[in-house]
């Protein structure tokens, strides 16, 4: 069986790496990673906005944001993919590729989950920070931009990194709408070979494992360094410590 694994890898490594490129759209791991990076980068500003909206005392901002977050937490990603696949062509007027659909879905879904991470980071800072900034004359948004968010986001870097790992795992659902990412590529291989499904999916699992595990390790190491740094700075800082959980907020599909 081990020889099968090596044979399959040797024959199909290009497909797994970049899909049909250049004879087709970019696929494989490259597609997975690009989708994940774009997804989380674009989700980031949305998440900050949602977090601020959730923390705001104005119901007009607070309620819709809270509703959005609860919907993302309560509805399966697959269902959201179906919605986006259906709604986006309606809204723009023409069809979009599976890649774009998946990207929009990820931005929305991760935006909601990241919003909770950002919110936790903001709430974990001592109240004194905001008070000091306002006492110096900063507006609420100014204080957020210059004082609160920089600190909160730095502290939440490990959590964000693990949300990134979640995003990578979520890209596998693109398979259902024919996004040519890694899982799709593996299924293509399996449909060609037909006789070695276990080996093919074993390879698929191992690849994801290596990628995600290394990133998780990096997140844990980062968390340790940040905690050490904060302990050094925190000499006179009272207040609750930020939650150092590296576990993602259950976004794993």
């Amino acid at each position: 069986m081990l020889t099968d694994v090596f044979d399959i890898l040797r024959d199909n490594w290009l497909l797994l790496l970049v899909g049909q490129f250049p004879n087709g759209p970019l696929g494989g791991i490259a597609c997975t990673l690009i989708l994940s990076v774009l997804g989380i980068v674009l989700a980031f500003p949305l998440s900050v906005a949602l977090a601020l909206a959730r923390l705001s005392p104005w119901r007009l901002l607070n309620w819709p944001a809270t509703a959005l977050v609860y919907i993302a937490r309560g509805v399966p990603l697959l269902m959201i993919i179906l919605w986006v696949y259906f709604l986006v062509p309606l809204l723009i007027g023409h069809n979009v590729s599976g890649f774009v659909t998946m990207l929009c879905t990820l931005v929305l879904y991760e935006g909601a989950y990241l919003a909770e991470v950002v919110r936790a980071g903001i709430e974990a800072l001592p109240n004194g920070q905001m008070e000091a900034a306002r006492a110096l004359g900063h507006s609420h948004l100014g204080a957020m931009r210059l004082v609160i968010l920089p600190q909160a986001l730095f502290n939440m870097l490990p959590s964000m990194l693990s949300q990134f790992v979640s995003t990578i795992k979520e890209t596998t659902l693109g398979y259902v709408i024919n996004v040519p990412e890694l899982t799709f590529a593996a299924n293509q291989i399996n449909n060609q070979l037909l006789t070695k499904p276990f080996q093919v999916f074993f390879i698929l699992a191992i690849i994801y494992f290596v990628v995600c595990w290394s990133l998780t390790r990096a997140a844990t190491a980062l968390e340790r360094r940040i905690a050490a740094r904060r302990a050094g700075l925190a000499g006179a800082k009272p207040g609750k410590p930020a939650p150092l959980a590296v576990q993602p907020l259950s976004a794993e599909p």
Partner: protein
Amino acid sequence: MKGFDLMAILLNPEFRSMLVHGLQVTLTIAACSWLLAMALAVVLLVIRLSPSRITERVVAGYVSYHQNVPTLVQLMLWYFGISSLLPGALQGWLGEHSGEALFAIIGLGLCQAAYFSEDLRSGLRSIPAGQAEAARALGHSYIGSMRHVLMPQAVRNALPALVNHSVSLFKNSSLAMAIGAAELTHAVKEVENQSFRAFESYLLATMLYLVFSLLIMAVGAWLGQRTRVATAR
């Protein structure tokens, strides 16, 4: 596009029965895999607490695998991969007796067991050391102190995480669609195909999912309330 007409779906008995059946399959998969996951999580925790380094590594490896490989890939590995390794007669039997749902239950159960056991483990570790000492000082055995003092507190500590992961488990039941199980998302796609009313059918399914997810969260919050008075420090 036709006008919005929810009743066209709700009043049609065929569509209704497809959705109801899909919901049943979803709830069955979710409930069975939850039970499997919880039972296995306790077993994993007990194994991990044993002094042997080897068992600790094995369980750590199990958890690491299930947390780093996407759930969809895990289900595919079970349904396409492992089933192909089974003897032919068993494969035939599974084909006739909704093997998709069964593999979904096994796959999801094993995956979430990893998360649940980590939650319980964190819950256990957040108990102050004095608790175990006090229990031993009173003469309780290791098992006794676990049963009466430590595990009750561990579960209470782990409750928020356990509830979160339970909601995840429920949502992940939709992944079973990718391996052919006739659960709710699959049913919704079928209804959409036949009725051409994507918006209405999606809306129904979304509301059903939301209702149950929020229900799980509400139960979790209620349980948390009941035990919070007792353990607030």
